[in-house]
């Protein structure tokens, strides 16, 4: 059975100190980054998709500076990097897993489509039914539900 060693608290910290970076220089770098983010307040015309990407990159750099220098992550062992990577993975997984459902890029406009049969129920469609809904009233590709039909179908 494995047991984690526990040192007397202060001894562990006494042997662990590794010095620290120049906090003042890091702070000045953070302020410079913040000034970049303030540009839209003076010149709203610069706001565009490109500037938004720049703003998010600046924010990421600031976060890396705070984590690496202020929080001393760069001196920590790889186990800690793995823990932080797990948190980042959760964000990326949630974002990219849900993105196809909400992005309008993935919407299918079926108002002009007239498939031969309903893709949910595989029933022959009515020729006049231009926007078919499935059994539960779901409109394919739009993520919308015909609530009345949903409740009737599910018996509520």
């Amino acid at each position, binding site marked *: 059975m494995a047991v984690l060693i526990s040192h007397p608290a202060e001894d*562990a910290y006494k042997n662990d100190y590794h010095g*620290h970076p120049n906090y003042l220089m890091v702070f000045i770098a953070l302020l410079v980054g913040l000034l970049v983010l303030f540009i839209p307040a003076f010149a709203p015309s610069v706001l565009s998709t490109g500037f938004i990407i720049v703003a998010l990159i600046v924010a990421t750099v600031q976060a890396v500076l705070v984590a690496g220098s202020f929080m001393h992550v760069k001196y920590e*062992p790889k186990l800690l990097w793995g823990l932080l990577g797990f948190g980042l993975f959760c964000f990326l997984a949630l974002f990219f897993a849900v993105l196809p459902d909400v992005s*309008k890029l993935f919407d299918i406009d079926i108002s002009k489509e007239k498939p031969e049969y309903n893709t949910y129920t595989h029933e022959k469609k009515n020729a006049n039914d231009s926007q078919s809904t499935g059994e539960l009233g779901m409109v394919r590709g739009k993520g919308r539900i015909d609530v009345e039909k949903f409740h009737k179908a599910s018996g509520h």
Partner: protein
Amino acid sequence: MSEARVVRLSNVPKGRMAIWLLICGEIVIFSGGLASYILFNVRYPELKPVTEILNIWLGGINSIILLVSSFTAVSAHAAANRKDSGQMAMYTWLTILLGIVFVGIKAYEWSGKLSHGLTISSGQAILDILGHGVSYFSYYFFLTGLHLLHVVVGAIALLISMLRVKSSGHNWQWVEMSALYWCFVDIVWIFLFPLLYIVR
């Protein structure tokens, strides 16, 4: 009977590891909120003009306050490493004071919005202003409110650790752990500020 084998999992002191585990849990929580907010903006880009209601200057001042407070928090940690209780206490008090100022500015911002009927469920208010009924402000109040809660908890942790160290002359590592948590709170705001106030 065989003896238990002792295995070292890491060279990180256990207190610091505990704080990092807490921070990783918080990262998962905030990443969920932030990802949800970004996806909301992807789905409803027409709501971006709503963000013009937010005051970028107040958001920017809050950003400066938190950056300065992170600097004072790590300075307190550096003083604790030198066993300099006077400087440690001074920097910790400065950090707490800046946290209080942050809370005050956030309260002023919120009061302005609440007085105009913009609440966490103010779909109707948005409908009246822009013709859209989707509640943008549910995200705003949730994200900033959760962050504000962490600021308050961080300030209390700093206060307790500073008083503990000054009274006992031991447990200097408590200052480090509180400073770590405070820097994490700053990192969250580093992302909240551009996402809420700039992306419009």
